């Protein structure tokens, strides 16, 4: 009797432990059941990351980075859940299971899920990562969504190219875009008598000489310049654009086949930045990542930041108001006063989970997200940037600041985030800046080493 009891207890232990391990996805704190129907459908899939299509109902999973702005005090995923509910009402045969992911752990989660075969169907992200998944054969082609009418409507070759992989097919369906720029504090500049250093008219373009004069005035008045942030990895595009613009350098050649930052302008820019840091005009940012640089700016600890966008302006508006700071957005300064700006593109991709029905349902969902008469424009506004479709018109009518951001699209530079080995190149960028700022290498040696490694990353990814 005792033995039977023991064996029974052991079996019960095994069963309960196994049960505890199962259904992980259902217990995920980040998972948001978009609707009652969604939850019910999800139960049938037993935590297998990607649900299957069954019978008349197809269930797809959507992983979303926090790109859509939420209403005040609403947690991440609230607005996305509203979209899902609206989509499911219009498409009762498709159920969408929503999961929000963050920029810190999200990329690792996607990588792990790809290898485990539990990745989502639809991902809301940007070309840098999406095209690298495409280059590795993980995505469904979206060529059929890029109709002639759509391409004509977008009418921006650089932007459309950013959605393509090297096989010429489209893998990302874009919804919105905006240029990265920088921002200065009006209060700091006025106190330092440096307002004459910037241009507040038209496209607000300015020169490197004006920027340097501003740095000196700010420093003389006791203000901290921005950090040359180079920790972590996020926001690297901002500081890269700052470096390339100072003396008209380029990260890659126009064909986006080779890194060229070690040209005369690139070396001069890095040398100058090192001088500014040594002189105390800018701060050595080896301990700061992009987000922290913005934090310092909105807290009033630094007089400007080299990482700004309409999205950031919207997200940080409340803090700026609390700290009584007016942020003036500006394009990056350049030697000739004509900037070449990097830009973000928000868009969707579909992972190839080996189920044609789910892939089709995913495309339908993406089409709803981007092109639905009601939700398309609403979704663009929630990204705080501009629609890629011209027919959507001016969604920020009467907003002069948004008009300024919209005008920056004409300064878009060649989009290199889709270059092969881009992910590997990013891991070399901040160590290179750190080597320069901490005096480990001369700017020339550091940037030559960076370009050599970055070009090798293209070869590695072949």
């Amino acid at each position, binding site marked *: 009797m005792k033995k039977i009891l023991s064996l029974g207890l052991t079996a019960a232990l*095994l069963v309960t432990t196994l049960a505890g391990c199962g259904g992980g996805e259902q217990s995920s704190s980040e998972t948001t059941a978009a609707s009652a129907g969604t939850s019910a459908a999800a139960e049938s899939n037993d935590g297998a990351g990607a649900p299957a299509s069954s019978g008349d109902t197809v269930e797809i999973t959507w992983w979303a980075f926090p790109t859509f702005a939420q209403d005040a005090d609403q947690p991440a995923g609230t607005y996305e859940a509203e979209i899902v509910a609206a989509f499911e009402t219009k498409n009762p045969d498709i159920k969408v299971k929503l999961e929000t992911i963050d920029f810190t752990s999200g*990329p690792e989660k996607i990588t792990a899920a*790809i290898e485990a075969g539990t990745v989502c169907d639809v991902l809301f992200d940007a070309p840098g990562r999406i095209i690298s998944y495409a280059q*590795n054969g993980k995505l469904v082609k979206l060529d059929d969504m890029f109709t002639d009418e759509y391409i004509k409507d977008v009418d921006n070759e650089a932007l459309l190219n950013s959605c393509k992989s090297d096989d010429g097919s489209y893998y990302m369906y874009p919804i919105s875009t905006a240029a990265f720029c920088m921002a200065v504090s009006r209060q700091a500049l006025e106190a330092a008598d440096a307002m004459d250093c910037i241009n507040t008219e038209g496209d607000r373009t300015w020169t490197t000489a004006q920027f340097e004069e501003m740095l000196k005035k700010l420093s003389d008045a006791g203000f901290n310049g921005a950090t040359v942030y180079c920790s972590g990895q996020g926001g690297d595009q901002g500081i890269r654009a700052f470096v390339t613009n100072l003396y008209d350098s380029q990260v890659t050649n126009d064909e986006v086949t080779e890194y060229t930052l070690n040209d005369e302008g690139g070396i001069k820019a890095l040398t100058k930045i090192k001088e500014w840091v040594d002189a105390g005009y800018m701060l*050595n940012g080896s301990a700061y990542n992009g987000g922290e640089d913005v934090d310092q700016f909105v807290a009033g*600890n630094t007089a400007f930041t080299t990482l700004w966008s309409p999205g950031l302006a919207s997200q940080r508006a409340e803090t700026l108001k609390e700290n009584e700071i007016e942020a003036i957005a500006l394009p990056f300064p350049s030697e000739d006063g004509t900037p070449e700006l990097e830009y973000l593109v928000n868009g969707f991709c579909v992972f190839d989970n080996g189920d044609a029905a789910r892939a089709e349902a995913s495309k339908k969902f993406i089409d709803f997200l981007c092109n639905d008469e009601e939700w398309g424009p609403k979704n663009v506004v929630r990204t705080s940037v501009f629609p890629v479709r011209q027919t959507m018109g001016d969604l920020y009518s009467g907003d002069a600041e948004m008009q300024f951001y919209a005008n920056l699209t004409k300064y878009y530079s060649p989009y290199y985030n889709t270059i092969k080995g881009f992910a590997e190149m990013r*891991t070399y960028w*901040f*160590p290179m800046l750190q080597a320069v700022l901490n005096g480990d290498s001369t700017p020339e040696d550091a940037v030559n080493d960076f370009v050599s490694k970055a070009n090798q990353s293209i070869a590695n990814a072949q």
Partner: protein
Amino acid sequence: MKHSKINKIRMRETLVSYAFLAPALFFFCIFVLLPMIMGVVTSFFRYNMKGMTFIGLDNYINMFKDEVWQKSLVNTLILVVGSVPITVLFALFVAAMTYEKNPFTRSFFRCVFFLPVVTGTVAVTVVWKWIYDPLNGILNWLLKSMNIIEKNIMWTGDKKFALWAILIILITTSVGQPVILYIASLGNVPKDYVEAAQVDGANDFQVFWQIKWPSLLPTTLYIVVITTINSFQCFSLIQLLTSGGPNYRTTTIMYYLYENAFKRFEYGYANAMGVVLALIIGLISFVQFKALGSDVEY
């Protein structure tokens, strides 16, 4: 006849024992043993998102030639060599000072030193990030107030300080468990032996060295091995605080492994690093067992 009955009983007991072990064994095999084997196997492949190609020892050869890996190894060894002795000595000191105090005081110190252990790494790191902040950090403020420094120091971004800044956090988060273990262990030293030694004229140092220390050796062995392994696997502090910077000054093997696996998608190369790290830890643990284990007697 009697002998075969005993054998039968033993067999049944053995079977029951294995049945009890089965759940743990099952999960050990699935979640520990199998991934370990897969890690070793895939370390011989060029394994990335595109697929797997057998490349023999290339990952290992490239790794030993990789300058960043070499830096990572040195940084990791500095952290281990720096943290293990300090953790052991500091924990022993705290335990020796507090184990005979009244229960309230003892609990207070146990709580103080164990708090960083039970607090999540992320929360601890965020607090340290504030402490080390170059512009608004309390450490710079304190040192400037005391006229020890004139200008703010960028603790986690300056090549002279970054690794030491990490080492300090590592020690504070490692010392809690050893303190608890030493307090418990010191409480178990037979009082008769201590009193007998004192009656024989032994001074405090002799009592500690001749009576208490031998009794503490099993605990010390455990603490040394566990702290060594934890220090070798230092990752989250680096990821959250410095991302390996400045210029790889705080990159550890674990962080570099992570960077290769999750940022460059070079899984095979990362697994090769994991295998070498496991071998290094195994070897050092073996030496520690040999050095400290032989004197463990009761």
